[in-house]
Every structure is written in C-alpha cells, then in structure tokens.
C-alpha cells in the first residue's frame, strides 16, 4: 500500500465536493492511503498572486511546511489551481533559499521549509505513481462506448518549468487514463486553452467567450462528454454552459465529468456515489452510450487514380 499526503483545497468542501469524494473512493480501490494535511489553509489562488507577491508565497508555504511534518514523500492535490500555487512556490523556494527564509518568517509559529515533499497533481500522481497498468487492472465495468474530450486547462501542464509534467501543448496523460477505462478519447485541439478561470465572477464575459470556444471544439470532436481534473474548469464549463448557449444561440448539452468520477464508474462503484446530482448539465445522455460499439471510420479504399498518383510521386 502506498501512502500519500493529501491537500483537498477549499473547493473540495464546496463546488467540487464530488471530485473530493470520488478521489477518495478511487484511491482506496488503488490501494493508496491518503493522509490529509491537518488544518491546511487556502493556497491564495489567483487573488493572492494578483495582489501581493509575499502573501502568494506565504499561504502555500505554510501547507508545504505542514506537509513536511507528515512522513510521506509526495503530496497530491486534486485542484489544478492549488497544485499550481503549491508547485510554483516549491520550485521558487527550492531555487532561492534566501527568499524561502524570508517568506518563512510570515509562516508564524511553524518550522522551517526544507523542500522534502514532492508536489503532484492528482492527474500526475495517477499517471506516474500509480500507472496505467494498475488502473487498468482495477477496471471491472469498462465505460466503453463513451467518446470523451479530455480537457486539461492551463495549469496542469503549464508552465513547463513549474509543472515538469506532460506536454504544455498537447498532453496525453488523461487521454491514456480514459482509454484505460475503456472509453474513447477523441482528438481535441483545445486541451490546454484557458477556460477563463476566476473571471467567472469578476468579468463573466471573458469566461463565456473562452469556455464557449472550448465547448464548441469539444462538440466538434464528436465527444459525448468532457472530462476535467480541475474544479474551476468544471464549474465554468458546466455551470456556465447554459449562459454560453444562450449568448451564442447554440446547444451543446455536454456534461462535464471529473476524471475520478469516470474512474470510479469503471471501478464498479454504484452511480449514486458519484454525486451526479450536483451537475448542472444532466449526465444521463452521455452515460447512456456506455456499452455501445464505436465503429472506427473505415479508411477510404484507395482508388486506382490515387494509387497511380502515388506511384507517380515515387
């Protein structure tokens, strides 16, 4: 059994409770024990680094210091934004011990940061530490028949210097996990475009424009649903989908799942445990495709002309 430190993040108790719950279910099946950081605090998210650099480092640093009190060598974080803040702080503190010392003075009453704990997103942990083979071995009810657009957002793979994981332009880790569950990952060009993040509240038009394009491309890919590993991406694509459809006079009807919800489905957990009731866009339509046989498009047979043209080139 593996043991790992767990940082749930604020939204785990709020908008993304279903992510938190399914992460716990999935990890149990995969023989991973998760130890939550006692009395963790908010990472500061976008707001801290927008307004105050020292605070933007100090808030995550407290969590990193608390994580070092536990005996695990890796911390995993479901929320992409928390992950980015934590990893970014870790990279900067590790590179610049003077800065770390300075920021540490704001983490009142806690010990000094040593940089002992690796920080990984839930996606990275599943892909690197658990591995596709292990995931595949736990699948009891494959979700074959579902076509899925894997949406990573900006923070799971970018910037490369911080995340040191997968491709910043066209990542494939989530696609491979989804395929291990039996589903078909569709080619999808907007994998790492930004959804508009916290502008959902501060300037909603930005999100309607950006998330609208992502939904448009996902629909065009032929997917039945989108899968994400970030609470803010989920709420922007799901909760704002109605507003987007209204503004641009379109109809997408694309449910937005968390990766771990689909993993839990494939691992045989009953549907009620996934908290699908919290989704704004109904999920049943997409789930009805499970069990369908996907016909691969036949490659067009080469006509005589084409063959001739090719041989001429040679």
């Amino acid at each position, binding site marked *: 059994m593996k043991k790992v430190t767990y940082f749930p993040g*604020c*939204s785990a*108790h*709020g*908008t993304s*409770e279903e992510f938190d719950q399914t992460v716990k279910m999935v990890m149990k099946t995969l023989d991973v024990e998760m130890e939550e950081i006692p*009395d*963790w*605090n*908010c990472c*500061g*998210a*976008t*707001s801290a*680094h*927008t*307004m*105050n*650099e*020292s*605070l933007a480092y*100090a*808030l995550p640093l*407290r969590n990193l210091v608390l994580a070092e009190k536990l005996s695990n060598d890796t911390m995993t974080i479901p929320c992409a934004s928390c992950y980015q803040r934590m990893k970014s702080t870790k990279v900067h503190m590790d590179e610049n011990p003077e800065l770390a010392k*300075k*920021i540490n*003075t*704001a*983490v*009142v*009453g*806690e010990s000094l940061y040593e940089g002992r704990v690796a920080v990984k997103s839930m996606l990275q942990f599943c892909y690197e530490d658990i591995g596709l083979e292990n995931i595949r071995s736990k699948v009891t009810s494959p979700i074959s028949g579902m076509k899925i657009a894997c949406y990573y957002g*900006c*923070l799971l793979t*970018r*910037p*490369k210097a911080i995340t040191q994981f997968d491709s*910043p*332009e066209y990542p494939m880790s989530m696609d491979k996990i989804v395929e291990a569950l039996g589903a078909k990952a569709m080619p999808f060009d907007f994998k*790492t*475009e*930004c959804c*508009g*993040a*916290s*502008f959902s*509240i*501060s*300037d*909603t*038009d*930005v999100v309607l*424009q*950006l998330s609208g394009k992502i939904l448009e491309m996902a629909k065009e890919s032929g997917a039945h649903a989108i899968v994400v590993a970030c609470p803010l991406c989920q*709420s922007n694509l799901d*909760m704002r989908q109605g507003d987007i459809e209204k503004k641009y006079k379109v109809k997408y009807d694309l449910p937005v799942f968390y990766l771990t919800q689909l993993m839990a489905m494939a691992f045989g957990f009953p549907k009620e445990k996934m908290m699908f*009731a*919290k*989704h*704004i866009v109904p999920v049943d339509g997409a789930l009805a495709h499970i069990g369908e046989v996907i016909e691969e498009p036949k490659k067009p047979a080469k006509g005589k002309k084409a063959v001739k043209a090719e041989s001429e080139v040679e």
Partner: protein
Amino acid sequence: MITLSYKGKNTFLEAVNKKSGSDVLECYQCGKCVSTFPVSNFMDFPPREIMQMIKLELKEECQMANSTWFCLTCSACSGRCPREINIPAVMEAVRHLAIEENYHPDSKQVKNIRKFHEIFLDMIKRYGRNYELRMMAEFNIRTRNLFKDMHLAPKALLKGKIPLGVKSMKSAKAIKKMYEMADKLEQQSK
C-alpha cells in the same frame, strides 16, 4: 500624441525586469504572444504592445491600461515565446508596481476584478479558507449588481453545488498574522 524624450536611464524597465526575473529587452516584437493570447479583445494593449511600452518607458500608459489585470496567467504566451520571456511574470510585475504606486485604471472591469481579488483575500483572512457563497454575495453587494448570476442560484443552491457554509480552519489566527507579516515584507521590498 506621445512625445518620447531620452533620459538616459529607463527606471521602469529596470523595476519590471527586477520584479519579473525576465529581460523585457529580449522581446523582438514578433507578436506570437498576441496570436496565442485568448483575451486580446478585452485588453487595451495586448502583451506585445505592453512589452514595447515598457521599453519606451511609457509607465503611466502601462499602469493605467486594463491589460495587466486581464492576464489569466495561463502561460500559453510564454510557452511559445521564442525569446523565452516569462510574459505573465512581466504582466504581474507591472501590475504589482501599479498597486504599490497607487495607480487606479478607470476601467469599470478593472475595478470589478480588483474588488473580486480583495474580497477573496478577505475571505481567507477571516476563515483561512474560501467561503464561496459569501464571496459571491459580497461581490454582488460591493459592485452594486445585486442580481448578478441570480438565475444560477436556484439550481446551484438546490443541487448543493454551492454549499451555504464554510468549514473554517482552527488556526485562522495564524493566517491573520501571516497577512500582517506579508504586508511588512512587501513594504521592505519596495
């Protein structure tokens, strides 16, 4: 019309470079950042122009523009920058300098964005964690737009998407102290 005068030393450029850890002079104005950039239509000046404005020491124009407030820090631009400039860090440096020096862009959107961040940080100061519902309510009150997103409320609340309360942390006091210390560190680094 803007008149440029050569003063021998571009202190704005120096300050931005120091804060961002990048060298804005490296920018050769190819515009790849703009073509990558997802929200150009919202910005007064796209990143490429901001870069040039820093080089020309158009400090006031930079600081009063809404541009740096619209940066999503998605790092798409810097990932493709052939000069490997950390563009989001440059945008952030300009914004931090603007906050330090009390520049307040006239744009209503910037005022809203800034208010949102202040409310968010206030939630963390109070509870140690974000209280989502209260944050949204305070944003509506403080931006005098009471009915914003009210059409989502019945669905979001009934489905439990947004819970009514917050599980605040035990050592919320430590976070209050952290805020005080962080403010002191910011003062020192000026």
